[in-house]
């Protein structure tokens, strides 16, 4: 716990009469159902923010960072949550203010931007009307016409082209980035003194994220409003805030200027957190036994030629993967990166034949498995496995994890029951879980542990190749690092080939020998990982790499 400090404001000469935000001893507890003790999400949190200052609140899931941010707008009122401590925003005591005063505060003094821009807007109403409505809540005398004009003005300010006309569109007619811009416009509409952004870029692609963060920086400089940026991504915070507050289990672990916290952390937890963050500009740790040396076998395992997949028929057909050719050799890791809609997941599912290609050839060790019927495929199933993204849905909640892992062994029917159990226990140990966990159920495990179970299940039939589809994107950064390390270790020991699909370029760099960059269903660039990362040839790859937020963006302490 560090001393309480006030984040410094910008040098715009604004009189600093007192802090814009003052939080002291804030605790938020949620009732946990009948009989249970309440769950403390935030526990004795204190911080201050000077007018015009920018504070990043970072932490892993469950650290209480969003809960703390919600308390600034009194959003826990009437939800059953128990809030204690003092919260003052621009001189208003959020805890004590009456309902009407709270409504004036919300949006008028402090405005909030939420994570998912699609669900955060009313699907039935035009975007401009929604902004105008908020404006009229805080400007009672304003006419409809004035409110509309203001809506168009702020939409224009956040970079919506042809704002007056686009204001009449409904949210679903906007792209993800434009929706987030619209939400920011709504926040701007009443000229608040404080903007609270709760994971504002988490649902967005990296290039769009870069634009939104740039917009936030610009607006802050222009309007002088304060910013509280809640995020799990240290890189996002690094370039956008002055001060950083690191949270863990509802408490502040470290609080200080962003450069200091990132480059000279005082607390062990912060150091661990920083060490776990994958860096896009750092080469992969060299493997002692360089690529495709394991077992000396570097023959071609999987060869896709002009692979193609369409969904739907006729006029509405969408081509998800278009003319993709790719080879995977034994023992190597091929990284596949791309933004949402690039077709990378579809490609991954075709490689293990969960999906049937609609065109092209998919060869596995010389046999064309692309058009095979399910029955013929069974002989190959054990050799091509997959690790899935979502640690929740990838395990059957009704079966013990041991049974889930044993499934491929039982289906093969080669081993007797005792041998299967022994093998499962061995696999559990191999992925770092207690062998006695055989009879436990998925809900008893954390996300990272479930992902380990998923890896054990994929290993069970002794495959030659595993496709990992965003295997760590649902995990916190420290868990992410552990799972990535485990995958690398297994690959080295077992001579597996991996296809590692992810949207996070930094994570992919940690594991890949070769890299494939996808966009709109096609491969735009392919090559040895270090070459692509350090000397990208295609402009799209260049843009993608430039947009990745970096910890170095924050200045090191003088």
């Amino acid at each position, binding site marked *: 716990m560090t001393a309480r400090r006030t984040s410094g404001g910008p040098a715009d000469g604004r009189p600093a009469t007192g802090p814009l935000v003052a939080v002291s001893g804030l605790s938020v507890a949620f009732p946990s159902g009948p009989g249970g003790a309440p769950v403390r999400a935030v526990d004795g949190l204190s911080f201050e923010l000077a007018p015009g200052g920018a504070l990043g609140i970072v932490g892993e899931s469950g650290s209480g960072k969003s809960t703390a941010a919600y308390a600034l707008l009194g959003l826990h009122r009437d939800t059953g949550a128990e809030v204690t401590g003092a919260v003052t925003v621009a001189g208003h005591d959020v805890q004590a203010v009456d309902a009407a005063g709270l409504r004036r505060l919300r949006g008028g003094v402090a405005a909030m931007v939420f994570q998912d821009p699609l669900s955060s807007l009313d699907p039935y109403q035009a975007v401009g009307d929604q902004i105008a409505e908020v404006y009229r809540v805080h400007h009672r005398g304003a006419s409809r016409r004035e409110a509309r004009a203001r809506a168009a003005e702020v939409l224009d300010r956040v970079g919506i082209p042809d704002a007056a006309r686009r204001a009449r569109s409904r949210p679903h007619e906007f792209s993800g980035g434009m929706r987030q811009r619209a939400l920011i416009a709504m926040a701007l509409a009443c000229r608040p003194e404080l903007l609270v952004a709760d994971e504002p870029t988490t649902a967005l692609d990296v290039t769009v994220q870069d634009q939104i963060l740039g917009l936030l920086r610009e607006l802050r400089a222009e309007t002088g409003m304060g910013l509280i940026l809640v995020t799990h991504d240290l890189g996002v915070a690094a370039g956008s805030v002055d001060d950083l507050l690191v949270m863990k289990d509802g408490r502040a672990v470290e609080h200080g200027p962003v450069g200091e916290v990132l480059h000279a952390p005082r607390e062990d937890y912060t150091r661990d957190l920083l060490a776990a963050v994958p860096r896009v500009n750092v080469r992969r740790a060299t493997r002692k036994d360089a690529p495709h040396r394991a077992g000396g076998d570097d023959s071609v395992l999987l060869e896709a030629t002009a692979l193609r997949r369409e969904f739907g028929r006729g006029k509405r057909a969408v081509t998800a993967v278009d003319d993709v050719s790719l080879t995977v050799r034994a023992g190597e890791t091929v990284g596949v990166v791309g933004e949402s809609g690039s077709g990378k997941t579809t490609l991954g599912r075709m490689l293990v034949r969960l999906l049937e290609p609609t065109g092209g050839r998919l060869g596995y060790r010389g046999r064309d498995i692309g058009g095979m019927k399910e029955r013929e495929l069974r002989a190959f199933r054990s050799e091509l496995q997959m690790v899935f993204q979502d640690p929740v849905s990838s395990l059957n909640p009704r079966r013990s994890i041991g049974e889930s892992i044993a499934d491929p062994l039982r289906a093969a029917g080669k081993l007797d029951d005792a041998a299967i159990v022994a093998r499962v226990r061995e696999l559990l140990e191999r992925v770092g879980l207690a062998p006695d966990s055989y009879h436990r159920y998925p809900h008893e495990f954390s996300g990272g542990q479930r992902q380990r179970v*998923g890896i054990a299940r994929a290993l069970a039939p002794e495959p030659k190749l595993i496709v990992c589809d965003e295997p760590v994107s649902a995990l916190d950064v420290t868990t992410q690092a552990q799972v990535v390390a485990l995958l690398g270790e297994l690959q080295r020991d077992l001579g597996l080939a991996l296809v590692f699909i992810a949207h996070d370029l930094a994570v992919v760099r940690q594991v890949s020998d070769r890299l494939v960059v996808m966009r709109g269903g096609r491969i735009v660039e392919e090559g040895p990982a270090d070459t692509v990362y350090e000397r990208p040839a295609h402009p799209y790859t260049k843009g993608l790499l430039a947009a990745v937020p970096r910890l170095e963006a924050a200045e090191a302490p003088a």
Partner: protein
Amino acid sequence: MTTELLITAEPEAGTAPASGTRQVLRRLRARKSALAAAAVLGLLVLLALAAPLLAAIEGQDPNTYHDALVDSARGGVPFGDFGGVSAEHWLGVEPGTGRDLFVRLAYGARVSLLVALGATAVQILIGVGVGLAAALGNRLVESLLTHVTDVMVAMPLLVFAIALMAVVPADFPRPVLLVIAIGLLAWGGMARLVRAQTLSLMKLDFVSAARLTGGSTWRLARRELLPSLAAPVITYAAVLLPTNIVLEASMSFLGVGVKPPTPSWGHMLSTATTWFRADPMYVLLPALMLFVTTLAFTVLGDGVRAALDPREASRLRVGRNRRKARTSGAGGTA
């Protein structure tokens, strides 16, 4: 044919699988209303099972006429207060015939429960089978079964069931006919539910993982799908049960259901329409039985649904925040 009968609560697409039978039972026990409903239904089942025994204790049987107990001068109204309640006839006698009301009500419970349970069982069997096959089969099977299901859902159930009675030979045992008619006609909603649930389960990664084990489709259905389908199927069956009870009563009320002299609450109510001024007890008793039974089933069904779909498990929902598209055409499930 939802109209007039019962409410078919729209089954939720993507109902979260509950975590363990024990937890479900624990949550169910925590709901007082569900417990009370279960107790009432327990009594009712007991009444139905023990009907011959109770009749023996009372010393009556359902079909003996007691002309001496009704006032033929007043058209057959029972002598005495409250429809002729006495030590021999605990709930009085039927106007016109003088048959013992208590025993007839108890035997009526047998018919009602038997038909409802039997019909529900048939609905579950057909619905689960067709729904699974439609979800897992190839394009031809799928489109065929989906169309057949659409027809079944569009079929005006009560209308068709009534119409069926016109062509089936009169000597066919009516309770069995009712089970078959309701069961064969009203599985559309269940099939739709199972198909939708299966399709959303198929999108989950653990089913994909199971496909990678190289087992057969039947193995997949048995090991991964059926256990997860149990919760929504049970929930929906709990909704179908009271619907079927009312359906049987309705058909008997209209004179196309159980045939006299077999006792049936619906049939009693239909004769009661001519007696309600002179002998209100005769209306109230079967109406009360039917009302309490349906209410108890409905309350229990609500409880089961709440216990099976806890918010704790809602993270497993397939289409996270998106509201589901309408799951069924609602036309013909009840």
